[in-house]
């Protein structure tokens, strides 16, 4: 079957019930998307499908209907996304394993709401677990990113 990931068309020969997460990681070698829990409890596997954040561990590749963007497609060191810039400015990451998912969740959220309240940030981000406890910095980085989006 064919899918579009980060603007590239990819052909994979897999079972339709294989989760998108594992198609990306093991079949296509796109490893910015992470396996954490497998049951949509941690958010480490968050990617965008047509710009909307989804948990790729719960998305059967056969049900996929839209273009996939992973953290690698959001931005790169040479061309950072505004959310990634904020993450670097505030040095959010500790172990960093959850941060791809956090950034993808935040980027999608800010597309819908670029002037969020603290409560709205908490609601949008609480399904993404960070075992290192970087939540205070994630909050700050989201506010910075929101401000930069509004001023862009």
């Amino acid at each position, binding site marked *: 079957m064919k899918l579009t990931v980060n603007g590239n068309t990819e052909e994979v020969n897999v079972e339709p019930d294989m989760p998108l997460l594992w198609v990306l990681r*093991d079949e296509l070698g796109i490893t910015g998307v992470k*396996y954490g829990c497998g049951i949509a409890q941690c958010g480490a596997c968050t990617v965008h499908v047509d710009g909307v954040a989804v948990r790729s561990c719960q998305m059967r590749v056969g049900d996929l209907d839209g273009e996939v963007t992973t953290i690698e497609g959001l931005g790169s060191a040479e061309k950072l996304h505004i959310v990634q810039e904020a993450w670097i400015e505030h040095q959010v990451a500790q*172990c960093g394993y959850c941060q791809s998912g956090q950034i993808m969740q935040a980027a999608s959220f800010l597309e819908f709401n670029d002037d969020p309240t603290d409560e709205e940030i908490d609601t949008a981000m609480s399904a993404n677990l960070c*075992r290192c406890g970087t939540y205070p910095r994630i909050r700050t980085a989201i506010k910075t990113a929101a401000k930069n989006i509004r001023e862009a």
Partner: protein
Amino acid sequence: MGRVAKIARRTFLIGSAAIAGGVAFGVYAVKKDPDNPLSADLSDGSATFNPWVLVDSEKMTLITPHGDKGQGVMSSQAALIAEELDIEFGQFETSFGKPSPAYWNRAFAEEGVPFMATDHGFTAETMRSIMGGVVKLLGVQGTGGSTSMADSFDKLRTAGATARETLKLAASQKSGVPVGQLKTANGAVQLPDGTELKYTELASLAATIEPVKDVKLRDESQWRLIGKSMERLDIIDKSTGTLPYGIDISVEGMLHATVCVNPKKGGSLNGFDASEAKQMRGVKDVIEITDGVAVVADNTWRAFNAMRTISFDWGNATIPPEQEEHWATLSDSFKEELLDSTWRDDGDAEEAFKEGASFSAEYRSPYVAHAPLEPLNAIVLVTDDQVEVWTGHQLQRQLQVLVAAITGHEQDQVILHNQFMGGSFGHRLEFEHVKQAAEIANKMRGTPIKMTYSREEDFAHDFPRHISMGRGQGMVKDGKVTAIDLSLAAPSVMASQGGRANLPFPGPDSQLAAGAWNNPYNIDTYRMTAYRAPELAPTSSWRAVGAPAAGFFFDSLLDELIHEAGADPMEERIRLMGHDVSRKVLETAAELSNWGSDLGPNRGRGVAFVESFGVPVAEVVEVTNTDSGIKIDKVWCVCDVGTIVDPINFENLVQGGVVFGLGHAINSEITYSDGKADQSNYHMHEAMRMYQCPDIIVKGLENGTKIRGIGEPPVPPAAPALANAIFAATGTRLREMPFNKFIDFV
């Protein structure tokens, strides 16, 4: 009993062999430095000056042997070298290096000795020095116990300085300019006429010069990097999804595996039926391993899926099967024959309590999982000549030993490519996952095997934080606390962990009582007794090890006594404090949190102080009792590590430690039924999510005389500070974690 006699009776980690059995090594063996591992495969024209610096004509490489599990020590180690070497971030590469005795951890000795961190007396310092010798002799390389900065601070600056001075010698030879007229900056030696000789240009000449040994480290006033916020070297990669963790590594020809080991702890595998699994797409093999089964497939998901179809006949657990039995075992362990040590015995407790205590209470701390977000994994490739391992690990040399024992190779034939770790919290001090990958790979020699735990397997075989039970009593008089007497019973986490690591652990376990005996209070009567319960579920060091449990008991008990006395929780702690650096920590917390100001209705604040790993930490927590439960509003955390290497990373780690301590105290425990962990994934062991996360104000002080690490110390005071705040707000005293068994949280 005299102090030295007490020490001899206690003995301690590894050092006990030296103390009890005569010092088994000469001064020469200890003074001799292990060989530089970088010399072994040095190419022509490359220079290495010590085990941490490698320069060739193309680039400079700094070896940062302490594992990075998120605490940022790759950057911090590099910064310490760069400070003296006069190179800038962006001018060098880093490597975790290969396992070597040259990377022995000097600071491991500190926590192993039975002395308070505030004790700098002759005996304490002598014992630390002897322990240091033992650790060096054994070549114990490792990351843990918040030791990375303490171990590295002088050592890596010296490494940078010796490399710099040797490069200056090379420049002097090349230019004819005397060394005294040379300066260094930006990765180059500067001649008086302004000419720059890049270190990389000097490498081949420097390689022929005996490295300079005696160097003087720069004064604090000259530091360019230390003490200033740095941009972590991994921050861009971690923000763009491009940093590979162990789980992301791919090796040519690799197959994917997963394992299922008897979830009934310690139980064997009696039999299994994998007939369906073997027919499934992509499945290459199903292999029996120690107490379990491995599925090898062409991708991870197919291995996971096939595993679910296998039926198992599991033997019974070798631990007490039901959780209540674990608690009952602890309850029965407060007896003389299980005495591990009386860690503190100030004043005369028998006299103080002869007419009974004015207060007594019992406390409990549960098993808790580490559950780092990157599930445990390892790639192993076994050939007849060698074994290669790709994984992130904290005890590199012990990993070699244990893998070699499985494959029949020598230790130095095991090549570890250490990786960035997606968290650990202590779990990556363990070896079972690596051993399992080695078992599979050994049966499939020539094929690289990437073994990945499912999250469920990770929970089932997490070696959790030990359970612990505390019984305390105290006396108050004239509005003051006059006596505190805490006993606790717990299985020894160090013995459990050491048994699996092949590291002997004789003698009392200082971690059983850590956080309870070592607080530098001057209380008329202060007794702390630890009983070692029989081993129950196998356990492992969980961020801050003993202090999250024992510190919770001690500080909660003290808080209760202060309330009994009718004193103010902050003022009485300050009054009792017998250590200037720690008193300043408490006073600063009081000042920052505006302690004593009116909070209004339904609100409360609590303070806790726990010293762990030599770091005094005070936390103040403010809560509101809302209609939908307790809301944590704000936390202040003040600590003293002597010297803060990177302020922004320091703040991040302290905030994270507070979140870790609070979150698990609120809602996380591992319990056992039929010998199996009841919790299988994050929905049953959640810790903190963002909606519960308070504002966390961090203040680092630098009054202490020794540099200390900050990875663990912010964790222990979080739980008692929260419990004390909840008591202040509601009148409900929480004596057992997790707190959500007794009270609702927003």
